[in-house]
């Protein structure tokens, strides 16, 4: 089915040139998306423990010499790395 553009509220069918341009744009977007999805770094960043959690764990470990939080967070970080390998 032919695409339409909605200009100022008026629906206008794409010309053949506009169809070709949109096909090319969508193909390029798919390539960029695939590259982004393949990038492990941003996926890891979303699932790593938060900066706040890291700061608290470090404080407890370094200042209070209680290592439980650090050990727990390191386990979470390693699990994320395993989930999204380089």
């Amino acid at each position: 089915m032919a695409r339409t553009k909605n200009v100022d509220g008026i629906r206008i069918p794409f010309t053949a040139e506009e169809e070709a341009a949109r096909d090319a744009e969508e193909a390029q977007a798919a390539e960029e998306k695939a590259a982004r999805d393949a990038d492990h770094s941003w996926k890891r960043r979303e699932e790593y423990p938060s900066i706040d959690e890291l700061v608290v764990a470090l404080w407890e470990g370094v200042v209070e010499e209680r290592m439980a939080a650090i050990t727990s967070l390191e386990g979470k970080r390693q699990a994320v790395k395993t989930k999204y390998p380089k």
Partner: protein
Amino acid sequence: MSEVKVDTISERTTDAGVTVEGVKIEDGVATFQTAAGSPLVFEGATADAYETTFAITDPTADRTITFPDESLTLGSSDFVKIHTITADDDANITFSSTYITSDYKQLIFLFYGIKPATDNQDFRVHFSVDNGSNYPANHDGTTFYSWKTASDTHMSSSTTYGTRNAAYSVLTFNTSSDTGHGFSGEMKLQDPGDTVNIKGWQFYGSNITYDAAKKLYVPTNGGIFDNTSAINNVKFAFASGNITSGSIALWGMK
């Protein structure tokens, strides 16, 4: 000129009212019907070539305009609603030079219920200086966003995608097409008619992601359009696929 002086004119036929040159008066209600649709014209204190007219668009259903029980003065607002476009499975929504003009120092686009036809789509904005003949690669932008899943108590935050010399900027990303997941937000564009400086824009919004986690994203984006010509056309589209539904209202600040 003849003159008639009476105290009261009453209807001759019950419930027929009294009609004077297209103005029907019945039970204290005056009904105006004119072909031009402007039945109220005020000359003011001075009889000259200038009048103030109430212009009435021919109604297609019963309408009511209500004045509140208070004193007020109507005046020209600096904040004006310009136009609204509703998507109907379109490849893009475009505001042309009809509405993107130099009349406004800031344009505000309000998004409501915008939804992609296919899952996992980025929503993009494109600017043109030749009313849509071209959308030049002058975008330079970045995104900061907060996010959480339904099971998270707190939001996390991260920087993510940026654009450099691109023909678009990303407003939302990984947008869900599920029922009820249309995104909302607003984008501001500074001084689109400026022909000296580059243009700045900002976006704030919220959307649900496509994936199983159904993350809530709250993107806060900003960028520049590195072009000193006046922007006179703004196009919105998903990276791929159509915009199935939703509306974009354009407001202008003078």
